[in-house]
């Protein structure tokens, strides 16, 4: 699955291939139809299609004479899921930040290190205001995927074709 995902991302790193995928998201098309809008030969489009086929993004029917190219929406969905997982992780973190912000005093505490001062060797204990709620982790309403894997913040994101607009609701 991860290998497939890598191949999908690599396949879509090329702008012409992304355009081909965008065209196929509307409907099946022959190689000739795909080549028409581009300033490339049918041969070049065929090469691009081979890469997309190897990634599992497109298939070509063996029986029909025209052999139209078909976009495999299922594989396409992988990327949507990847992006959505990344988004959910970020949202879960930011909900925790919401709680931290709600519990913060309006002014920095006197013992709080300022960004322009040397940091103390040891973290200073937080001094919550007596009447303020403390963040209570974990949040019951957090939409946390129950994944048995460390959810490392991943700064990287896949290139995604221009045509993909999130998860249909």
């Amino acid at each position, binding site marked *: 699955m991860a290998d497939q995902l890598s191949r999908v991302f690599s396949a879509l790193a090329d702008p012409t291939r992304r355009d081909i995928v965008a065209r196929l998201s509307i409907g099946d098309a022959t190689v000739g139809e795909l080549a028409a809008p581009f300033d490339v030969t049918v041969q070049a489009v065929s090469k691009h299609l081979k890469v997309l086929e190897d990634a599992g993004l497109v298939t070509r029917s063996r029986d029909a004479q025209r052999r139209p190219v078909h976009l495999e929406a299922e594989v396409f969905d992988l990327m949507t899921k990847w992006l959505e997982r990344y988004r959910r992780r970020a949202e879960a973190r930011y909900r925790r930040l919401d709680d931290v912000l709600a519990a913060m005093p309006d002014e920095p505490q006197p013992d709080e290190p300022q960004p322009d001062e040397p940091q103390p060797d040891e973290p200073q204990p937080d001094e919550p205001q007596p009447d303020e709620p403390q963040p209570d982790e974990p949040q019951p309403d957090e939409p946390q995927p129950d994944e048995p894997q460390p959810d490392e913040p991943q700064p990287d994101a896949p290139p995604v*074709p221009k045509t993909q607009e999130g998860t249909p609701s």
Partner: protein
Amino acid sequence: MTSTTSRETRIVADPDLPIVRITREFDAPPEKVFRAHTDPDLVAQWMGPNGMENRIDEWDCRTGGSWRYVAMRDGEEYGFRGCFHEVRPDELIVQTFTFEGMPDGVALEKLVLEDLGNGRTRLTATSLVDSFEGRDGFLAGGMDVGVNEGYAKLDELLARG
């Protein structure tokens, strides 16, 4: 640009560069949001992997400073570290990010705070990875279960809506 939107975190992935941009609004002024990113005690309360305990070894959020934290679960430790390249109070944090399990990989992260008035702030976090390949490493990096199992869980989750 491709995006998924909701009332929550908004995420955009650039089709031509290994960039992801996340936008989120907070019910707090920029000064507070900035402090929640710079004070290690506050950072420890929210940053880092979900559902894991964090230990912040270093958090010198000043221009030229550096950071390191360790996420822990079931005796396993996952270290993350980087440098603060440029820090401008209440406005900007430019930093690097590396998962120590992949020490050659590095991401450049830029956090911009916008004052929306009425005590609200918009945070825009842009992350640039050094390669498309590096992204796939991050995808699998640090996982203590098979990726397929992770995806199976994800599918269940998404199926539940």
